């Protein structure tokens, strides 16, 4: 393991976050707070408890997941796309680093940012609603696994994209809709039976469900299935990244 190389990439990416603090941290926190105000307070005041949890508290895990998924994807995709766009990628390709180390640096940094952000949002949420975390270790496990998996997905998107438009395409057209339809703001019990079945096809549902279970012990699907889903996702992303580096797809001529 080339420790200095991984540290260099990781440190470089993290420094980007501090440099763009407003965009990286403040803006997700503000938008999440807005969700709390609109959904938690305005609409939530008219919704009774969901599975014994106040609506404001119920949406916290979903909102953290929403931010975690979108930020992981956008951070990681931008992190690798920008050097490709500007041409500075030549340096990484000519460095004595293995593919694994490159991924560790870029994806590790993107996942770290998302996790930090998730925890900040958790802190912000606690200002609005009373929170309890029944299974903190599981909560952290889901947080880390999800951040890692979607940062990998972002990395793949950043390699695949050949323009800024494509970079936005997947987060905008796939991740955000799936998250909204995956039970961020509701339990699937609240849906008609037909839509419940459809929603079960949405992989994000399993992530939110597992994450919410770690808070309140309530879940739409079993925790084991949630964990298996995220691990399958992780496996697929790892396989894709391995293929990208093996073939040099969009990196090497």
């Amino acid at each position, binding site marked *: 393991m080339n420790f200095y190389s991984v540290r*260099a990439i990781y440190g470089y990416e993290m420094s980007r976050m501090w440099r763009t603090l407003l965009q990286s941290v403040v803006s997700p926190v503000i938008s999440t707070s807005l969700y709390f105000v609109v959904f938690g307070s305005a609409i939530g005041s008219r919704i009774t408890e969901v599975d014994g949890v106040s609506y404001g508290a119920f949406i916290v895990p979903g909102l953290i997941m929403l931010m975690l998924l979108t930020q992981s994807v956008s951070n990681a995709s931008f992190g690798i796309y920008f050097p490709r766009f500007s*041409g500075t990628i030549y340096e990484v390709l000519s*460095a*004595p680093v*293995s593919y694994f180390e490159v991924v560790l640096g870029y994806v590790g940094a993107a996942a770290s940012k998302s996790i930090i952000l998730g925890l900040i949002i958790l802190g912000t949420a606690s200002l609005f609603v009373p929170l309890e975390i029944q299974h903190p270790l599981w909560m952290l496990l889901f947080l880390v696994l999800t951040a890692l998996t979607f940062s990998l997905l972002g990395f793949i998107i950043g390699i695949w994209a050949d323009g800024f438009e494509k970079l936005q395409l997947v987060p905008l057209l796939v991740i955000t809709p799936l998250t909204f339809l995956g039970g961020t703001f509701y339990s699937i019990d609240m849906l008609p039976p037909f839509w419940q079945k459809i929603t079960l096809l949405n992989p994000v549902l399993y992530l939110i469900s597992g994450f919410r279970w770690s808070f309140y012990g309530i879940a739409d699907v079993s925790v084991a299935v949630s964990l298996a889903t995220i691990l399958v996702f992780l496996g697929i992303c790892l396989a894709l990244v391995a293929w990208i580096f093996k073939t040099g797809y969009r990196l090497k001529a």
Partner: protein
Amino acid sequence: MRQLSEDYGAERAVSDGSAAGAERAPERGVVSIRGVSKVYDNGFQALRRVDLEIRRGEIFALLGPNGAGKTTLIGIVCGIVNASEGQVLAAGHDVVRDYRAARAKIGLVPQELTTEAFETVWATVSYSRGLFGKPPNPAYIEQVLKSLSLWEKRNNRMMSLSGGMKRRVLIAKALSHEPEILFLDEPTAGVDVELRRDMWRLVRSLRETGVTVILTTHYIEEAEEMADRIGVINRGKIILVEDKNVLMRKLGEKRLILHLQEPLERIPPELGGYRLSLASGGVELIYTYDAQAERTGITSLLHDLNAAGVRFNDLRTQQSSLEEIFVNLVREEA
């Protein structure tokens, strides 16, 4: 090609044709390229079985027109481009199988000014050192920045620097991990004359520290000015590798061309002591001599010609330039 003619004084004339034989260094160099070809996905063949040995500690200029394959060749050595076939060793390490050891020895300054706009000079150079697996060494980075007149700019963001300064930062980045081999891809493309001369000074000083420098250029003047050896590449093939001094000696050779009144079938035996040849169906007698020598032999030749009864009605001299050799080589290939 226009650039070539413009840049080099269009002083004089004809190639003597001796440039065609490419030298093959028998020993393995610090960079050893063997049978390397590259065919891009779109079918374009950028390199055709290139063999090249770069000697340790030399400055090697790879000269060629745009699109000749220079950057592709560098890309393959540095790990940015995959070769379709062939093998490259850098400092004795295979650049594919043993890429860690090989790449740690190589620094690359790309042709394009690709920099992270928002980073400071210090941060971006330190990053490069870390990326290449070296522990932080602020004293060394300071030394590199000072040697490149960048120390005053160390806290400046890249986007605030001029093109010339950015080029220096790219060199500093390439030197940050103390490489043994430095590739400079068109280091002086688009830079002003003063900076170009600065760059030449810098490259020479690098050589003094033991770094092997390989630079690509399409400025012949640059190759002449700096290189120990010169390689010419065209259409993906190395068509000449020669010591610069040997080339320059060839350049030092001039030819006296006598237009004869009567064509000769062969050179008269009494003139056998001169380097003479016949051309244009025996109408032209060509005498090759060293223009820099103390005695060129012209006077005695003219005397002996007179004695042998060879009459001429016109004469002129010609000298090959590196540019001439290059242009002719490239034209022959085309």
